[in-house]
C-alpha cells in the first residue's frame, strides 16, 4: 500500500490531494480569482497561495481521514509554471517532508495531468491533447518518454481565451474559459478569424490580436454580439486543436484520444474531438473538472508512479523551474 500526498500551485489554483493505490482519498482546491478585465500576476498569486495552503493541506488530511504518519511520500510540482507560486508550494512541501521524515518528489506538472487522465479514464495508450491556460501540447508515449508531437509556437490556447475574456470584461469566476463557453452557446453569427495551424504545431497570438481588434470595431458598431465572438473564437481554436491531434494520431496509428488540462473541461471541444474520433473509429477520453483543472491529486498520482519506480528528489535538487519540458522526464514506470 502506497499513500502519496501531492501539492500543486503552478498557476492560480492551489490544491493538495492524497492518493492511495489509485484511489483519490481527498482533493481540496482553492482558486485565486481576479476581477473582470484583470489577469493573475505572480506575486499576488503567490500571496493568495501562502494565505490558504496550510488550510487546504489540513483539509486534505482530514477528508482522507489520515495522519501524517500514514503518508509514504510528499510530491509537489517542480515545474513548469509561474515562479513565485511554485516556490511558495515547494517551500511547504519541503518543510512537511522533513517534519514528517518522508521522501520528497518533484513532479512535472504536464505529466501530472497525463497520469491523472490515464488513472481516471483507463485509456491504454492515447494520443494526449494537453490544453490549459499555460500549455498546449499534443503528446504521445514512446519508449520511456512522453514525446511532444505538436504544440503551440507562442501562447497556450487557454491563455488566448483568458486574454480575450479580459478584453470584453467577462467574469473570471469560476474561470474565464467557462464563461466564454456559456456565452458561446448563445452565439449565432460566425465571424471569420485567422486559422493558424503550422504543420504539427499551432499559433494563437495572431488570432488573439485579430479578435481583440475585431471586438473593439465590431462591438462598437453592433455588427455582432460578444456571444458571436465567443462562439467564433471557440470554433476556430478548437478546430485547430482537433486538426493537430488528428495529425498526431495518424502518425502514431493511435485509436484513443485523451484530453487533459483546464481547457479540456470545455464540452464543445470534447464534442468536436468526438466527431473526429468517430470518423476515424477512435475513442475519446476526458475527465471532469475536478481532474481537468489543476489539482493536488494529479501530482500525487504522478508522484505515486514515480515513487514506486524508484524516483526520489533530494532537497538540494528540489529547486523549482518555470520551464520544464514534458519529454525531459524518463518515464520509468511504463514499458
Amino acid at each position: 500500500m502506497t499513500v502519496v500526498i501531492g501539492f500543486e500551485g503552478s498557476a492560480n489554483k492551489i490544491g493538495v490531494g492524497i492518493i492511495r493505490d489509485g484511489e483519490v482519498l481527498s482533493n481540496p482546491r482553492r482558486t485565486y480569482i481576479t476581477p473582470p478585465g484583470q489577469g493573475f500576476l505572480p506575486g499576488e498569486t503567490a500571496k493568495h497561495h501562502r494565505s490558504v495552503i496550510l488550510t487546504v493541506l489540513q483539509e486534505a488530511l482530514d477528508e482522507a481521514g489520515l495522519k501524517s504518519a500514514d503518508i509514504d511520500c510528499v510530491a509537489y510540482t517542480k515545474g513548469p509554471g509561474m515562479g513565485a507560486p511554485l516556490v511558495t508550494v515547494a517551500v511547504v512541501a519541503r518543510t512537511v517532508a522533513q517534519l514528517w521524515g518522508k521522501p520528497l518528489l518533484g513532479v512535472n506538472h504536464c505529466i501530472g495531468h497525463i497520469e491523472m487522465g490515464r488513472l481516471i479514464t483507463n485509456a491504454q495508450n492515447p494520443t494526449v491533447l494537453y490544453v490549459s491556460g499555460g500549455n498546449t501540447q499534443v503528446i504521445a508515449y514512446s519508449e520511456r518518454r512522453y514525446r511532444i508531437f505538436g504544440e503551440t509556437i507562442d501562447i497556450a490556447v487557454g491563455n488566448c481565451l483568458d486574454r480575450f475574456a479580459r478584453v470584453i470584461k467577462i467574469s473570471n469566476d469560476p474561470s474565464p474559459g467557462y464563461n466564454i463557453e456559456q456565452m458561446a452557446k448563445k452565439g449565432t453569427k460566425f465571424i471569420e478569424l485567422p486559422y493558424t495551424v503550422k504543420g504539427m504545431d499551432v499559433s494563437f497570438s495572431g488570432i488573439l490580436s485579430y479578435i481583440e481588434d475585431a471586438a473593439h470595431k465590431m462591438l462598437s458598431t453592433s455588427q455582432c454580439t460578444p456571444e458571436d465572438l465567443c462562439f467564433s473564437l471557440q470554433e476556430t481554436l478548437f478546430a485547430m486543436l482537433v486538426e493537430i491531434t488528428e495529425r498526431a494520431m495518424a502518425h502514431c496509428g493511435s485509436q484513443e484520444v485523451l484530453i487533459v488540462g483546464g481547457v479540456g473541461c470545455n464540452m464543445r471541444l470534447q464534442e468536436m474531438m468526438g466527431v473526429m474520433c468517430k470518423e476515424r473509429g477512435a475513442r475519446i477520453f476526458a475527465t471532469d473538472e475536478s481532474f481537468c483543472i489543476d489539482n493536488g491529486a494529479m501530482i500525487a498520482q504522478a508522484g505515486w508512479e514515480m515513487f514506486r519506480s524508484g524516483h526520489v528528489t533530494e532537497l538540494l535538487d528540489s529547486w523549482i523551474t518555470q520551464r520544464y519540458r514534458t519529454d525531459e522526464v524518463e518515464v520509468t514506470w511504463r514499458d
Partner: protein
Amino acid sequence: MATCMSENGSERKLEFFLKVPFPSEREATIALQSLSPDPEPRKGGISKNLDVSGQTLSVRWTADEARILRVSVSSFLDHLSLVMETMDAFGPPVSQ
C-alpha cells in the same frame, strides 16, 4: 540591519544580515533546507547565503542596488514566515 559602505558616492555592495532563532537546531536546519534550493529569480546583482549555527538560521545578502535587496529580503521573509507557520501547524519534527 543594512550597511551601506559607500563614502565617495561610487557603487559599493550593500549587505543585509538576518539571524532567526528556532526552538532547536533540527528545526533551524529544516528551515534552511526548505529555503535554500530555489535560485534567486533575478540572476545578477544579488547573492544570498544561508547557514545554521546552533539553533540559529543566519542569512547574508549582498546586492548592488537597494531596490533589488529590498525585493529579495521581503520575499525571503514571506517564505520564512510560511515555513514557521507550517512548523507550528504540522510539527514538531518526528524523531529520526
